[in-house]
């Protein structure tokens, strides 16, 4: 732990430094970099969930004028390393899920490529498949654990069963969340260029981590990472789905290597994004709470059942949030997963905490109802003095303040706790609350470079990525304060592996990890060059390993409030008001942070009411895989949304005094909406999303 930076630029609502470029169309996204003579790739996806490709007839496609090549499992290059089977593109005839790449066309125009892809005939041998997760699935197993790092799948303290047995009040319910897809606005896109002479591969990519993609692609193709460059100056959202490379990066690079010297552009269609770039597993979560009549918890048990793919394991840590959220002497959490014939699931919008907190906070609402205790006070009553899992002190836990102040600002008080007690015309009206927490994530290893341009102007470089969150702006502010200059003197350079290595933009870790590296580099620069550096003076440094104070449990917290109106005739739900009050340490940029909070709250609303990917058990595909049928809120669904935060700093978390802010907006907000719907109607929908049919009377 080092001293905290004096905030001069930090804390100001600086407008986005790249804003003008974006609104005038000058900010290039992955598909748009001006490159000469590009070619276009359109893939062919498997139409069976499990089996073998027995024949690929490319003659029709190859006969089409403008087609340069058709890649198939028969002619694709053999990759150097396919230990990660998600990247084993066109390496065998095996089909492991519906929507897997089985061929790809590269042509002069996107239209020709698409038409030709439609002419590729693929024959299959079908094998039996299993794509349906159930609570008692025969294939459920305890996830493989990494002994050194990564959380344990199960935890147990005390004797939960005995505590539940003797509890005066028990809540025991199962909650489910469906398969959900991240759906960033910008589709996953890679423009790949292979220069045979130099052996250089360049990817213009829509990614949350240029260095992450470089590492994967270099490994898969057996290339020296120094010969792979990944460029991503601007990214139109990722929400986790661009947190690692996916198969499309490999396919684009493979096509480029087959056609040296020509850039190959590959943007997935919206429909293809439902097959190939990750998603949130469905979850089936049993939550059991045992309490005394006043609502004081004696036992907390949270068991999560989820799926993963047969080719790559990923566990959504849904039950983890119950390890630290409330005090109870007896506790247990478990995760069980089943490997199904489905695409690889991955990070999506607060993986783990988001679905887990929905279930846990809905259960807390049920407990408040069962005990006749105000839901805000129930949470305050069970607020732990120290981290109930580790026993460590909190760096700064202000959940109760968020709840109580939030309740005040939302207008919680005076609420009749009885469900179905308020009606406005044809609408039943209710309010709900939920707590939120998200662990402070710091990824070590990021490096920043500082160079004095002269006249007090500095260039600050780091291979970070702004996925729409505001990193261009907030890192500029951090650099300004670290160098003691106004923000206008900082020229930030990010989004390119040509700049020093940086960790992924994900897990609410970006600002913490990169900002800490920038502060370290600025301090190294000032140590070396003093207060009057020569033009051209430079220094690099990586974030110190001991940035985060290990003696403390460090989390961001928040409280969500929502008002729901449910039509008594039709079951339609409207949410005219949502309010969130957050505790995230110092706010680096109030403008971009508010935007992230509001975005998270909209996504929480979306999860509560709208989002559901229906995987057809017979074919294994997502039947409703486009924006007409995979619903997210429209403007008309989003009412008066407000987000505030406590004025604070947390020097134990980062030298900026900040903690993670990216995901706390979506954690808890679905439960606040669901709890409000229950309060409005008296109907407890435990299976998201809460669509009108589930509320019909």
């Amino acid at each position, binding site marked *: 732990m080092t001293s905290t930076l004096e905030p001069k630029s930090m804390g100001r609502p600086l407008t986005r430094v790249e804003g003008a470029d974006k609104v005038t169309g000058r900010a290039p996204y992955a598909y748009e970099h001006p490159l000469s003579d590009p070619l276009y790739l359109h893939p062919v996806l498997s139409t069976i969930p499990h089996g073998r490709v027995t024949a690929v007839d490319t003659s029709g496609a190859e006969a089409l004028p403008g087609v340069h090549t058709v890649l198939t499992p028969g002619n694709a290059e053999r990759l150097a390393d396919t230990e990660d089977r998600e990247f084993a593109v066109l390496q065998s005839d095996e089909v492991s899920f519906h929507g897997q790449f089985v061929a790809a066309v590269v042509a002069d125009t996107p*239209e020709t490529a698409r*038409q030709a892809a439609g002419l590729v005939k693929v024959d299959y041998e079908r094998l039996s498949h299993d794509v349906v997760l159930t609570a008692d699935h025969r294939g459920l197993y305890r996830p493989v654990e990494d002994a050194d790092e990564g959380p344990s799948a199960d935890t147990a303290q005390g004797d939960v069963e005995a505590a539940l047995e003797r509890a005066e009040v028990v809540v025991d319910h199962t909650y489910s969340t469906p398969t959900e897809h991240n759906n960033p606005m910008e589709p996953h896109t890679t423009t790949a260029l292979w220069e045979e002479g130099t052996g250089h591969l360049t990817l213009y990519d829509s990614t949350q981590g240029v260095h992450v993609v470089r590492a994967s692609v270099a490994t898969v193709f057996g290339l020296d990472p120094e010969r792979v460059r990944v460029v991503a100056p601007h990214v139109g959202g990722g929400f986790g789905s661009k947190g690692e490379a996916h198969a499309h990066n490999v396919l684009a690079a493979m096509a480029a290597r087959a056609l040296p010297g020509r850039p190959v552009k590959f943007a997935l269609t919206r429909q293809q994004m439902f097959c190939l770039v990750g998603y949130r597993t469905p979850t089936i979560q049993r939550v059991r709470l045992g309490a005394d009549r006043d609502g004081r918890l004696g036992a907390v048990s949270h068991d999560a059942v989820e799926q993963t793919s047969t080719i790559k394991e990923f566990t959504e840590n849904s039950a983890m949030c119950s390890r630290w959220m409330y005090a109870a002497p007896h506790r247990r959490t478990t995760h069980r997963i089943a490997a199904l014939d489905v695409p690889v699931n991955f990070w999506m919008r607060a993986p783990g905490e988001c679905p887990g907190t929905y279930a846990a906070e809905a259960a807390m609402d049920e407990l408040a109802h069962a005990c006749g205790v105000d839901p805000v006070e129930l949470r305050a009553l069970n607020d732990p003095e120290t981290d109930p899992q580790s026993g460590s002190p909190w760096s700064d836990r202000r959940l109760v303040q968020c709840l109580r102040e939030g309740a005040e600002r939302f207008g919680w008080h005076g609420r009749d706790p009885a469900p179905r007690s308020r009606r406005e015309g044809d609408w039943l009206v209710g309010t709900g609350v939920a707590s939120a927490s998200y662990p402070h994530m710091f990824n070590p290893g990021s490096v920043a470079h500082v160079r004095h341009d002269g006249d007090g102007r500095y260039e600050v470089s780091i291979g970070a990525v702004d996925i729409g969150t505001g990193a261009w702006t907030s890192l500029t502010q951090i650099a300004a304060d670290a160098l003691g200059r106004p923000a206008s003197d900082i020229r930030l350079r990010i989004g390119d592996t040509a700049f020093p290595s940086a960790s992924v933009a994900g897990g609410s870790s970006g600002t913490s990890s990169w900002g800490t590296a920038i502060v370290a580099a600025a301090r190294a620069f000032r140590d070396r060059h003093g207060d009057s550096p020569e033009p051209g003076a430079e220094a690099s440094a990586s974030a110190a390993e001991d940035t985060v104070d290990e003696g403390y449990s460090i989390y961001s917290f928040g409280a969500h409030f929502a008002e729901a109106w449910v039509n008594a005739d*039709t*079951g*339609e739900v409207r949410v005219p008001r949502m309010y969130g009050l957050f505790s995230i340490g110092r706010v680096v940029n109030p403008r971009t942070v508010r935007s992230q909070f509001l975005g998270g709250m909209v996504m929480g609303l979306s999860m509560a009411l709208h989002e559901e990917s229906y995987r057809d058990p017979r074919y294994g595909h997502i*039947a409703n895989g486009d924006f007409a049928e995979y*619903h997210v809120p429209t403007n008309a669904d989003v009412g008066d949304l407000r987000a505030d935060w406590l004025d604070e700093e947390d020097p134990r978390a980062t030298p900026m005094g900040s903690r993670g802010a990216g995901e706390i907006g979506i954690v808890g907000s679905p439960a606040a909406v669901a709890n409000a719907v229950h309060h409005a109607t008296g109907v407890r929908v435990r299976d998201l999303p809460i669509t009108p*049919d589930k509320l019909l009377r």
Partner: protein
Amino acid sequence: MKPFAYTRPAEAADAVAEVAANPDAAYIGGGTNLVDHMKLGIAEPTSLVDVRDLLSHRVEKLPDGRIRVGAAVPNSDLAAHPEIREHYPVLSQALLAGASGQLRNAATTGGNLLQRTRCVYFQNRAMPCNKREPGTGCAAIEGYGRYNAVLGASEHCVATHPSDMAVALTALGAQVRVLGPSGERTIDLPGLHRLPGDTPQRDTILEHGDLITAVDLPRLPLAARSAYRKVRDRASYAFALVSVAAALRVVDGTVEDVRVAFGGLAHAPWRAHRAEEELRGGPATEEAFRDAARAELADAETGPGNAFKVPMAVNTLAATLRDLSTEETS
């Protein structure tokens, strides 16, 4: 997308001749549905005949009091037209309940009537679908059933018609004017759209080459008190789970006249003749509204994915008529 020819003939008759001569030709108006289908590979016309400029863009009052809506009138213009808003509010409301502002600006009156089902299996070339490829089967019956029909479906197809406007026009009993290879004719709604039977590939009774030139609204004083209620999974920009177009006249607590059509329930906009008969001359009470709705839905056939549509349709019709009858009294 397959390459295609594109022409813009000057006269409707030339357009009809051009399409009639080529079984793979298609008319294009706003293109808001057809272009999607071409991208998805579920429509592959070799020739597009653009009729947007040769069809009428006007809403005009005929000497006998009827309203003639040109087939090229954009949905947004029709919804905003003062004559429509005042005398046919159900139509204006239905149009505004459909699609988005941008789509309504592009979509035409004729094209809206002829949009095809949004059934997710119809729109996916990898799936069996009797409507897209007769004889391949229906994946929707046992599949994602949220939007499936509950009335008038067949073992070959359970698709629903997606238009909101067509539901209002069906309640109003509008007439569709058609120019075909053998001349002009008119079709009374709900006679344009058909039930799937064993030929679900045919959405309407139109023959290849038929071109909708206009829609005539009858003089219908009853329609001045009318409403469209669309229930959907979000507040805007979603297809109807259930929708109701209704017009109601109540005199001394008795239903003197009523028009009802449902959307979201069938392969075609569903004129609720049975419910209308039950209601006419009876008491204007919520109970009577519910009974009439139940009578209309007595033959509904549902699966696990769409069973909710029956109570939703009953509730929605009752609520719509309740609101109309309350307005009447106040």
